[in-house]
């Protein structure tokens, strides 16, 4: 049975854990314990290669309390090569130029250390 711990442990080791349905082949990122398409409990773990493109992104100016010193920063939805999407911070881009990152921009996974936790993050590729 897949648990949240499997996701968090994977992330700590610099991977993005996902799952693939053994019955219908549906790919899910981050990992889900039950197939979102056919409802099967029978899944395999799947690691993303960490490559994808931006679907949509935003600049956060008004940040949560714990991140107020980091603002402004960029967050986006990334469509992974494997076929599902994941939310992540987008690093290595200037938040003052939000239109630099367009839908379709190629990005690569780069785990970001934020205090004690590892956060899903991506860096635009040239």
């Amino acid at each position, binding site marked *: 049975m897949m648990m949240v711990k499997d996701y968090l442990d994977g992330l700590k080791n610099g991977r993005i854990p996902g799952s693939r349905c053994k019955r219908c082949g549906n790919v899910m990122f*981050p990992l889900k314990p039950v197939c979102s398409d056919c409802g099967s409990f029978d899944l395999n773990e799947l690691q993303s290669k960490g490559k994808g493109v931006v*679907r949509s992104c*935003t600049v956060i100016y*008004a940040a*949560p309390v714990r991140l107020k010193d980091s603002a402004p920063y960029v967050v986006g939805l990334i469509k992974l090569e494997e076929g599902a*999407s994941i*939310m992540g911070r987008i690093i290595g881009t200037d938040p003052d130029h939000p239109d630099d990152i367009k*839908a379709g921009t190629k990005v690569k996974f780069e785990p970001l250390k934020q205090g004690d936790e590892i956060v*899903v993050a991506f860096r635009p590729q040239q």
Partner: protein
Amino acid sequence: MKKVDLVGVGMTVFGKHPDKTGRDLLLEAVRETVSHVDMGIDIKKDVKALFIGYFTPELYEHQGHIGALAAEWLGLSGIPAFRTESACASSSAAFATGYWAVASGMYDLVMVGGVEKMTGLNTAGVTDALSIAADNIYELPTGITFPGLFALMAQEYFEKYHVTWDDLQAIPIKNHHNGALNPRAQFRSEILDIAEKTGNKIGVKFKDEMTFLKSPSNPAVTYPIRLFDCCPISDGAAVAVLASGDISKNFTDKPLHVEGIGLGTDTITLSGRKDLTSSKAIVNAARAAYQMAGVKPEEIDTAEVHDCFTINEAIITEDLGFFGRGEGLKAAKEGRTALSGDKPVNTDGGLKCKGHPVGATGIGMIHEIWLQLRGEAGERQVKGNPEIGLTCNVGGSNASAVVLIFKR
């Protein structure tokens, strides 16, 4: 199943109530409700169960167990009572629970309500409290916020339909116009009046709404969303009384019939959705409500929809089938959703101007439909004796939704 009728609704003014707690606000809304039941009601005798929506009382008031608390505060201790929670749709969840309780025949009359006392926390504290309506493991660690989630939807909408932030502004301008006519609204001013007031303070003359909305006086919150795209932080409560069709005539000869009710969910993660410009929660809820009521989208005379951020009014009016895909903004720009339009939406000013005390919002919407269908909306009354009204209240980033259809 029993027929279910709405026999009374009441609400506080939405806004800042520094001297009142959640329970004070709830009592105020109950007293309003009682005064609106045409033939009177003795709540001690008549109310058989109580359901109250409140999203995060733990965070705002360090208070749980709202059902028993509310029952005691209203002098109703002894009856069944509990809290319902579905983020910003918490009071519509209370309404649905009350509907099922009466429709099943288990109780002949119930009180449903909602409350949120938010302004005790500062903006950062409220942002944190609201954020727990999103996925705290898969998405919040990225630093996303609620305005951020809706910014991601807006960006995908703009990209898909080749529109810009400028096109969105017809919505807040319209909602401020309506809110200016609503004595219960938090903001009762046209955007032009706010622009003039702000301009006088800083020595600038704004020539029209857009000049003001594009100025630093309307700061960015999460690109491309600015302050006037966001609903405010509010305190407030709203309450309704539901009675079985067998006994509603004892309370009023002008009830609203609950003709359709539909609920649904979408993924709580945005990453789980293939399309950010639509919500499965709303589409499913609307389909169920229309089917139950035997009503088509074009037959709805007026609607209240969840414009927590301006983009959501466009998304919801499309998901409800009022307009085609990508046509929600165009409809707003053409004035079709204005008070004088063919499909008036958010005649009370919407969440943007009326305010959004999260747990009270759904029944606050029903309050407006009650006034409109009974011809009691005063200066903002929709013309042509509207007969059928709809509310669409959503939780979080449209991850849960309740659609209700009322007929007079």
